[in-house]
């Protein structure tokens, strides 16, 4: 059985139903969440509210401390308000490079949308200032 085996094993013909043990624990639940978050046909409420930019949700921008996993090339954990958030899964990554010709407006970032402690966080490494930022907490 592959990923999401619990969902795939569901038999609608079975009138008596099956026990609700789709997710035996955190580890079995995470792939489903990630799959759903990555699914192109699922639109999150925050995206609907903020148009199609894809960076909706609560917009925040504050410096955070990130520990980097060089092997997997993803953030391993980050620390915010004194609390450590271990990254459970990398949902998406993208890059931004804007207004390079204007020193006041220039933006050069590598962004990581991660799942941590049950929430979805957008971390960004700012290439210009050489620091990590939390740029969004999305629903």
């Amino acid at each position, binding site marked *: 059985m592959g990923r999401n085996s619990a969902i795939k094993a569901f038999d609608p013909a079975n009138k008596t139903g099956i026990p609700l043990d789709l997710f035996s624990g955190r580890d079995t639940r995470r792939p489903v969440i990630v799959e759903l978050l*990555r*699914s*192109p046909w699922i639109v999150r409420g925050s995206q609907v509210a903020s148009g199609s*930019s*894809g*960076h909706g949700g609560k917009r925040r921008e504050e410096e955070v401390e990130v520990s980097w996993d060089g092997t997997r*090339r993803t953030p391993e954990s980050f620390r915010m308000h004194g609390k450590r958030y271990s990254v459970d899964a990398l949902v*998406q*990554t*993208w*890059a*931004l*490079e*804007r*207004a*390079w*010709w204007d020193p006041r407006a220039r933006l050069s970032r590598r962004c990581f949308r991660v799942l941590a402690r049950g929430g979805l966080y957008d971390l960004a490494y700012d290439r210009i200032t050489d620091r990590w930022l939390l740029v969004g907490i999305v629903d």
Partner: protein
Amino acid sequence: MHLHVHSRFSFMDGAADLDALIARAVEFGMPALALTDHQGLYGALRFYRKALKAGIRPIIGVEVVLETAGLPGEEGDLPPEERLHLPATVGFGRAAGRGFHLTLLVKDMNGYRNLCGLLSRAHVQSRDEPSVVSLVDLGRHSEGLIGLSGCSNGEAGAAVLAGLGWRAEEALRRISRCFASGDFYVELMHTLTPESPSYVSGLMAIAERLRLPVVATNNVHYVERREFRLHDVLAAAGTHTELPGPYERQNAELWLKPAGEMRRLFADIPQACDATLEITERCNLDLGLGAFHFPGAEVAVGETPYSTLAKAAWQGLERRYRPVTPASVARLQHELSVIQDLGFSEYFLVVKDIVDFARSRGIRYSGRGSAGDSIVTYLLGITDADPIRHDLLFERFLNPKRCQMPDIDVDFDSRRRDEVIAYIYRRFGNEHVAMVATVQKMSARSAVRTVARAFDLPIAEVNALSRHLPWVSAHRLREVLDTYPECASHPLKNTARYGLLTELAGELSGCPMHLGTHLGGFIITREPIATWMPLQWAAKGVVVSQYDKDDIEMLGLAKMDILGLRMHSAISDTVTLARARVGADAVPEPFDLTPDDPAVYELIASADTVGMFQLESSGQRNLAMRLKERTFEDIIAAISLFRPGPLEAEMITPFIRRRHGIEPVTVPHPAMGEILRDSYGVILYQEQVLRVAQAIAGFSLAEADSLRRAMTKGRSREEMEKIHGHFVTRAVGLGVPRAAAEEAFRQLEGFAAYGFCKAHAACFAVVSYASAWLKRYYPAEFAASLLNNEPMGFYTPRLVVNDARRHGIGILPPHVNASRGTYTVEDDGRSIRVGFRDVHEMTHRLLGVIEREQDVRPFRDLADFLRRTRAEANAAESLIRVGALDGLGSTDAGRPSTRDELLALLPEMKAVIAREGVAGDDVLVLAPAKAREPEDPTHVSGWSRARRLSAELEIVGLSLECHPLALARADLERRGVTWARDLPRLGDRTRVRVAGVRERAQTPRTRSGKRTCFLTLEDPTGLLDVVVFENALNRAGETIVKHRAYIIDGVLQNNHERGIAIIADRIEPYVVRTAGGAHVRMRRGVPSGPMGPSLGGAGAPEEESWAAAEAALAGAPTGYDG
């Protein structure tokens, strides 16, 4: 492997340099790389050759615009919200708005020919319609091609991004049907944007439904990430928008990523990356380079191309050689056998066909280049220099040991070149002829303009930044700004404001901008040309190949240069004018003259060469003073000596010293003495290198030519050592003393790379002698013809007019009752009447009307002129101001109206004529206009001399009455100025002060790397050559650029070795004023007349002044200079 790659040949939509692309692919260990530029194969052959050399497999491809496939109807039938976002125009032009991108890759030769045909059809089928590939054409030409669905500007990609999955599916279904099964892939690009995951998964889902394979690409537009800025700049400039440009890219991820990076992006879809390998395996194009493909020549039944060529050559022998000599017979037999062995007969016949046509129509032409080394071309009438008499060697032209495409270039009368071109199309068929393209690349100026436009700087600022840069490569921009004195106060030196602009402009060095048309290169093929290369319309309105001349040569196709030479037109015009004056029999055909007239050589030797073909430049005039040409061989030597190679090898000085007996002629071996007799022991000609190698080391001429080439091109130390050993061993074997052999080789090594092709010089010398003869015997006709064919030659029309005046020819001003469109000769060859062709604001219409009305009756006055010609106000004003209506009409004072009175009357008269129409009385009486008092009552114009001269310079670009400095003669003499004509009488190293108006300023590269400026000035008595060495240039660079007239202090150089020149140490600007203090404006208003631009009379157009640019920037009116 990357299968979707744009280079700089995507014209303003790619920043990847081909060499850098290939080097990076090799570094990443990629076995193959594709090149898929927009709409064409512009860079494909260079890429093919370079990639093979680097050891990777080249995959040739293209990204085309395909018509809409996913809709049953038109895009416009859909409601606006369902329409797709159309691709940007950059790289595609108008086609961008008519379809979507599709990537095509060539599998084999069949696919290559199909792709050429498909592109040609899309581009050439209609000049008015954009170049869009139809599905029908794609289906017909898809054999041998692999299709990829394209980037996010492909129809499927754009539909997925727009959430129109149904349309993407339909488009993919229909496009895939155009290809053989398995030859169409859905292209997946993960460009690290927030939308990328949904884009990839959306396309993936459709591909699975349609059972189409997928392939991963990255839409590469630059080699390294840091180059994304160049791409943005190019795309913005290419679409005439400011940054961020048409794509509004979110990031900088379109770089050539290594395999690991691509695998990581497509970790969930490994088959997409695997497919790149699979496609690479299927693409095995072999272009079969190295073979020759000649156009078909017409031969009679029962004849072969060789027999036809041989017969024509033998007939030519009888005609050209009387009596026929054994040497000529032997030479012809040898050349014909080589031509037959190499299979080049057809090529010669094609060239003969074209020149035969020109001859039959009386179109003047002359062959040039190494083709002059062949007796066959001489006998066929292609060239005019006798190869036996001038000791020209066939092996320099065609070396049987190196099977290389022959190249015969022919210059035709530029005015009638179109007739020749029309004949070529008629004779070989439109489908078999195309013009060769050139790739226009960015210089420093254009690079600065490109970046400045992308930065959205105001146009005045863009002009100010770019116009005053020297013509250098963009990568030298920073160095030029830092070191060139004329850039001392250039605005680009403001690094705080323009640092980024300068940096980016430097990186754009040599970037292709667009496809141009070669001046005269034609490709003629036996098969339809579209099976060899893609064709397209050029801006000029002709069909051009997408390949340049090097690409054509690589493909082994026949190329001919049908060049236009204005000197041929001028010579023909001179002969016509002279024959009209003195009778047809009195003027022989100049090309048929025996070149032995002492009077002609006297003219050349006195450096009185303005207008003479190849002999008129300041360097040549200086050389003439030292060389003192006496024979035709001397003309050949002069043309050869003043060339970059001989100049760099500093051959002139030993040549002149030995000629005048200042130093002895020494050669290492007596055999060389005979070979180098004409050049006094200096190895000046490439042909002499062959002869020396033959005489000293016993090389055959073919071997000797190979030796010469080896010595010339990219010679490494090891190679030279090998050649050296071989040469000396063979020479010693023939009994030549080792020391002599060593010295002979040393000299060959030193000069082989710098020698000039004697055949080329000899072909030119025929034209040079003809022009010199015409200048000697028909100076007025010759000068008028030069002026009628401007722009041509080294000098401006102003100088040609001044030169004619110095030869005693009267210059008559333009006049509505005497001038025609062109310059004409009057007073039995003693005067030239200025024509209207260069008059500012003159139109073709008005010119025609004036000529027609002159034939009816003379113009009586301004009203008569305006009524009969309906002259436009601006043109009429120009004519009045330049004096073309002087002396017409009569005022109450019983004298003709002054120019001021005519100008005052003009608006009212125009208004009355406009009201009255053409009907009615042709006498118009208006009250005399109020005008200021005449400045000079003695002159019919009422204007002062300074004002007349300023108007002449401004309106026709000529100083008709006198040289501008002649007005300031008294002032200049008071300042101790020496005139040009007096310089030869002064001794060497005399300190002098001269004054002159700038005619030319050149700063060629010198061996030492130091900058030296060669200024050609003109004063009322002649030309002055001034040398400004680096120290003086650093002080005076800005003065030279900003002003046109100078007073120069320096030391006179006047000796046999160096000729006459002034070594400047102080240059001051000079303001030309008359004795009365009136200022003479030295610059022309606009450098063009109805016949097109004549290179601006008093010199450069207005914007060449820094003051003008600065004034424009500040919105202030332009001031005077000089």
